[in-house]
């Protein structure tokens, strides 16, 4: 700021507002704007005229130019950015449009008038080549219109009007940016947010005591925040006001107004209001107070701000709840929404308005803490919580400790006021079967993950995932995770092998992983099991009525069409968890397990019949005749012995292929013959276990298997390998050779430490699969081991698969973290949906 500016007038301008400069052509608006605002804050009508017509002075382009101006201004205001409109705005109609725009975006319209003499304007215009021929009468008309407008500006809707008269005033003025009243983002608490009190002074004192306040002051410097509705209905509204007002005055508390204060305030200001809904009690109780106190109350109530944004924008407190687009905004409707909430326009059977379930739609990052609607229990929904637990109706008075997110409450001494209708059994909007919103998953999306930053999902992949998720998947509440894909080991150059563990060990050594675990790869179908302790636990934690969990495939489909079969498996898992004592040990009443379900033929029957067994059948049908024909020709002395030998080899390969798939097929009857091999406990109440080292994981799982007498649960064989020790690596290779030699599918090599990063901070692959030589016939075809085939197949590209594996892994971890932290369902589902969408990315399916 320059010397001259500080001498002049100081113009306060709110940080989020629409600033309308008003002045005749040549009055110096553009110069003023450039001096006081950022270039990107300013939109000038001349510039917009240029944009649409290539000529900043083309008056015929005015209409289109203003469309563009309003559009840009609208985008900026929606994004919460102050915007300065540099146009003459001397006509009421043009200002009306801008005021409308400000209201649409719930920001303050501010007018700054540059009232500069006509001669000065004319002189300046004459000095500009592009405006030299502007008729003098135009400027005269501008000035007349401006003068006529001056008196009306506040009535038109401008919340601040600064009029600068004359050149000197204009040039010496200083603009200072003011924060909005509701912006307390610099306060970080900790806070104790108190629900609706309604004159329950005894309960308030008890609650403050329980929270640790002594005479309104917390020894640790905590701040109380009242969500409003201090008065009406209850026995001692003056007592409550006295306490809250003194705490606010001394800086120990914040308070937002409730609709009851608002109405009482109007009464105090002498407005006629109906003495209903408990107001009569307040008026009567206040009769006994001094005139002075009533004046203090009036002043207090007049000064209340509709809502506060606290803790760097992470917390919003208001009385009746507030959608994200209103956070930190300033308009009549924001205030009205903050005080009264939104209603659908319908009334219920008690004649009360039906409240719009705004919290269902809420997707904001800030936690919204509010009251207004009495509920029996305060519960979180989409990062919002209603603290009105009906103290005055004989419920309790509840407070939320923030950031701890702990609830503290005291019961009501008695029913102080009979409710019109019973308290609802659920948080507002927390209905059963309430689906997620399409906007949470649809289109191109970017999911923020803790472990790998932003993961993007392309539109076409999202569309495919939407179809599968909608038509086939289990209830999203019971689908808190989908397993990521896994990359195979780098291609081997050992003769006869396409995959070999040596590369996997080397890869981990290179990534700085010293100790890995080799886990037997069970050849079945991937299955995720969510096991709740009982139906009640499933209801409480996952909000479902009936099932005690879920068992689903890697694309979220229920494993069994018959729900009772799922329940039988869950039952066996449950009793194993019971017997192993894991509920108590893990302090949980649900467990999420990653597992392999066998046999393969159970789920892949369709594929087996149409593809695998079919190939076997065709080969068995064709070779006897073909070999006989060749043998016949050889017997006749035709030289086809090479061809014959080759066909024998091929027949042999085909028969090995048949052996390979047969190993993973067997007949089941009900649950007889079904086996489940759990290999990771993914999460329990309040905790993701994805980072639990695999040795500890396997120890827990072994106990689970031990305690299953039914034979359903299978153990996973394992071997620990030190990647830097050649002896240990050799033992790992031998173990694999032995296991795959007996027909095993192969193994997965994982860092023992589970979630591991390289020195550079990059996530390492959570597992690398090494598939057996015979097993790979199922993947690469019966004859893939022929040297000419192998050499061609070695040209495979792993990078995309590896990247995909890491991205899906990060999304999976994210889903588990969000689940563990009790984040809203849509947040968990967003990550889960992302995994499914990525699974439809084009990548070589044989990897």
């Amino acid at each position: 700021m320059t010397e001259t500016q500080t001498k002049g007038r100081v113009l306060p301008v709110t940080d989020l507002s629409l600033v309308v400069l008003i002045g005749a052509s040549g009055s110096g608006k553009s110069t003023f704007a450039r001096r006081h605002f950022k270039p990107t804050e300013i939109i000038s009508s001349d510039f917009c005229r240029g944009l649409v017509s290539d000529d900043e002075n083309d008056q015929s382009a005015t209409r289109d130019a203003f469309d563009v101006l309003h559009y840009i201004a609208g985008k900026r205001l929606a994004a919460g950015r102050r915007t300065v409109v540099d146009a003459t705005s001397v006509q009421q109609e043009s200002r009306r449009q801008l005021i409308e725009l400000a209201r649409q975006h719930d920001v303050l319209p501010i007018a700054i008038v540059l009232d500069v003499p006509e001669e000065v304007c004319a002189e300046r215009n004459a000095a500009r080549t592009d405006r030299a021929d502007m008729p003098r009468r135009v400027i005269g008309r501008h000035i007349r219109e401006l003068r006529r407008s001056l008196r009306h500006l506040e009535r038109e809707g401008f919340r601040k009007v600064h009029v600068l008269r004359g050149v000197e005033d204009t040039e010496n003025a200083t603009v200072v940016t003011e924060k909005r009243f509701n912006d307390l983002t610099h306060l970080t608490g900790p806070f104790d947010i108190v629900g609706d009190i309604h004159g329950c002074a005894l309960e308030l004192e008890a609650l403050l005591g329980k929270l640790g306040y002594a005479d309104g002051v917390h020894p640790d410097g905590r701040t109380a925040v009242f969500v409003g509705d201090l008065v009406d209905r209850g026995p001692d509204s003056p007592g409550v006001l006295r306490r809250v007002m003194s705490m606010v005055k001394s800086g120990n508390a914040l308070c937002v107004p409730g609709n009851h204060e608002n109405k009482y305030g109007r009464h105090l200001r002498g407005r006629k209001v109906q003495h209903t809904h408990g107001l009569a009690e307040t008026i009567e109780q206040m009769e006994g107070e001094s005139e002075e106190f009533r004046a203090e109350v009036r002043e207090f109530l007049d000064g209340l701000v509709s809502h506060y944004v606290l803790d760097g924008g992470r917390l919003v407190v208001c009385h009746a709840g507030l959608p994200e687009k209103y956070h930190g905004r300033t308009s009549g409707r924001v205030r009205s929404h903050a005080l009264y909430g939104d209603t659908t326009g319908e009334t219920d059977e008690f004649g009360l308005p039906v409240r719009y379930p705004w919290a269902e739609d809420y997707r904001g990052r800030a936690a919204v803490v509010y009251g207004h609607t009495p509920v029996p229990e305060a519960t979180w929904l989409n990062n919002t919580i209603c603290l009105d637990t009906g103290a005055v109706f004989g419920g309790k008075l509840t407070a939320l400790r923030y950031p701890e997110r702990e609830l503290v409450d005291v019961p009501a001494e008695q029913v102080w006021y009979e409710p019109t209708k019973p308290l609802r059994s659920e948080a507002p909007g927390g209905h059963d079967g309430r689906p997620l919103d399409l906007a949470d998953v649809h289109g191109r999306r970017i999911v923020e993950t803790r472990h790998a930053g932003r993961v993007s999902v392309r539109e076409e992949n999202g569309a495919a995932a939407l179809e599968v998720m909608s038509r086939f998947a289990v209830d999203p509440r019971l689908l808190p995770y989908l397993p990521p894909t896994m990359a195979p080991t780098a291609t081997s150059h050992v003769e006869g092998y396409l995959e070999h563990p040596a590369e996997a060990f080397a890869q981990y050594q290179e990534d700085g992983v010293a100790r890995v675990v080799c886990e037997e790869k069970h050849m079945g179908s991937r299955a995720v099991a969510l096991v709740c302790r009982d139906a009640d636990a499933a209801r409480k934690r996952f909000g479902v009525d009936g099932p005690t969990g879920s068992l689903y495939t890697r694309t979220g489909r229920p494993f069994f069409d018959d729900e009772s079969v799922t329940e039988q498996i869950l039952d066996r898992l449950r009793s194993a968890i019971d017997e192993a004592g894991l509920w108590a040990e893990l302090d949980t009443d649900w467990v999420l397990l990653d597992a392999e379900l066998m046999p393969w033929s159970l789920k892949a029957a369709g594929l087996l019949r149409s593809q695998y067994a079919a190939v076997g059948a065709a080969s068995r049908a064709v070779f006897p005749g073909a070999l006989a024909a060749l043998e016949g020709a050889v017997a006749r002395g035709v030289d086809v012995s090479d061809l014959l030998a080759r066909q024998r080899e091929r027949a042999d390969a085909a028969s090995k292929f048949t052996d390979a798939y047969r190993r993973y097929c067997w007949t089941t009857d009900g649950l007889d013959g079904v086996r489940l091999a759990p290999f990771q406990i993914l999460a329990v109440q309040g905790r993701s276990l994805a980072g639990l080292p695999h040795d500890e994981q396997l120890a827990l799982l072994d106990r689970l298997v031990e305690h299953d007498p039914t034979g359903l649960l299978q153990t996973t064989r394992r071997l620990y390998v030190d990647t830097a020790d050649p002896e240990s690596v050799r033992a790992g290779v031998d173990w694999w050779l032995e296991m795959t030699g007996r027909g095993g599918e192969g193994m997965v090599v994982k860092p023992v430490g589970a979630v591991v990063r390289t020195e550079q901070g990059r996530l390492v692959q959570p597992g690398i699969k090494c598939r057996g030589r015979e097993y790979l016939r199922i993947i690469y075809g019966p004859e893939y081991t022929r040297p000419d085939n192998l050499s061609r197949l070695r040209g495979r590209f792993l990078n995309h698969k590896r990247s995909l594996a890491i991205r899906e892994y990060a999304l999976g971890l994210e889903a588990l973290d969000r689940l563990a932290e009790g984040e809203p369902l849509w947040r968990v589902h967003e990550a889960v949906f992302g995994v499914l969408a990525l699974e439809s990315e084009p990548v070589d399916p044989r990897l």
Partner: protein
Amino acid sequence: MFLTISTTGTPERPATDLGFLLHKHPDKAQAFSTSYGKAHVLYPEADAERCTAALLLEVDAVALVRRGKGKGRGGAPDAALAQYVNDRPYAASSLLAVALSGVFSSAMRGVCTARPEAAVQTRPLRIEVPALPARGGAELVRKLFEPLGWAVGAEPVALDAEFPEWGDSRYVRLVLESTGLTLAEALRHLYVLLPVLDDAKHYWVSSDEVDKLLRAGEGWLSEHPEQKLITSRYLSRRWSLTRQAMERLELVRLAEADDSEVEEIDNAVAAEAETEEKPTPLAVQRRDAIITALQASGATRVLDLGCGQGQLVQALLKDARFTEIVGTDVSMRALTIASRRLKLDRMGERLASRVRLFQSSLAYTDNRLKGYDAAVLSEVIEHLDLPRLPALEYAVFGSARPRTVLVTTPNVEYNVRWESLPAGHVRHSDHRFEWTRAQFGAWAAAVAERHGYDVEFVPVGPDDPEVGPPTQMAVFSLSAAPHTTEKEAKAA
């Protein structure tokens, strides 16, 4: 990949004439390169009495897959079109037919300079194809070959003797015998009918297939009772290849990730219904009933939720009172077909401004669906698993909340009147449930109660006195609620 052609002979007309007719010497083994691998011709037996020629095609399965190189990421071939685990190296598919026409091209044309008279003579022929993929089974094989004068032996091949419960494979062991055909005729029959029976979708067929079919079918195809099937199957392969490449890949990958066949999940549009020219009378009656109910409701802005191939949208467009028609479906394939059916890209602006199609899902709420007069859910709810029905209920009645909602669904009681439907079967393989009138009524009444609608039921199709109509329709209308003023709302 293997077949034999045998003939018998007499000293006057020795069997070894076969070698002249095929232009391949019986005492030599000959190899020919084809684009799918090497073809070999050899004779396991060859004397005056009996002579057998064998055609063996060594299919290079790896090359077959890698043909698509460059299409996928990093040069990896895309899953949908290629599998290493593939019956092509073993089964007598279209590849063998291509090899046949390449190796025996003169014989197929009936040209034989050495024995010109033999080329036009009929002779005893026996053809064995040990692994013939035959969609339609042994029965269709007989229907295709018998009218041509063949005695047909077609024996199904079991999928896996160790798993008898899996049943038969799609292969048959084929033996054809005839004395009344020329070799050229026999070869042309094979050339056309092998791929027709195979009916594989995954192989490129060049653009001059129509000409090839006409040439190879000369003299027998036009009279064949199964001419229509032969022609459509023969020519449909190319079309389905492009279709797959265009639309299905994401779903193919999701199916593969889950060890499923793509048909299990990409089944939102019934394959046979896709080319529906003459809709079944019931579908027409249903559409009429829906339009009548919409007209009665006074709706002008209408949602068709689960619009499928867009037949209802198309019908609604013909009535100008419907000023805004929105069709949604969760299946991108359905939307593509609907858009094609409506010719959206060529529609005039005025008409186009009345219609929109977009992907949505009834398992999620969708703000774009709010504020309409009416929503139609025609034959939709039965495609949802029952536990997911509350989500649909909320999305439609709680969130979108149009004044009128029409729901149609099959009446399972009526199924006994469908002669073609086996007892206990649902009408469509993707139906997750079918309800009786009482079940549907109870559901609809509960929905209406929960969301403040009134509901009436309308039969669609002949209303059988005993089992009711084939389709049941519920008409929901938003109950007239006492209007609350803003002031009253605030007072509470």
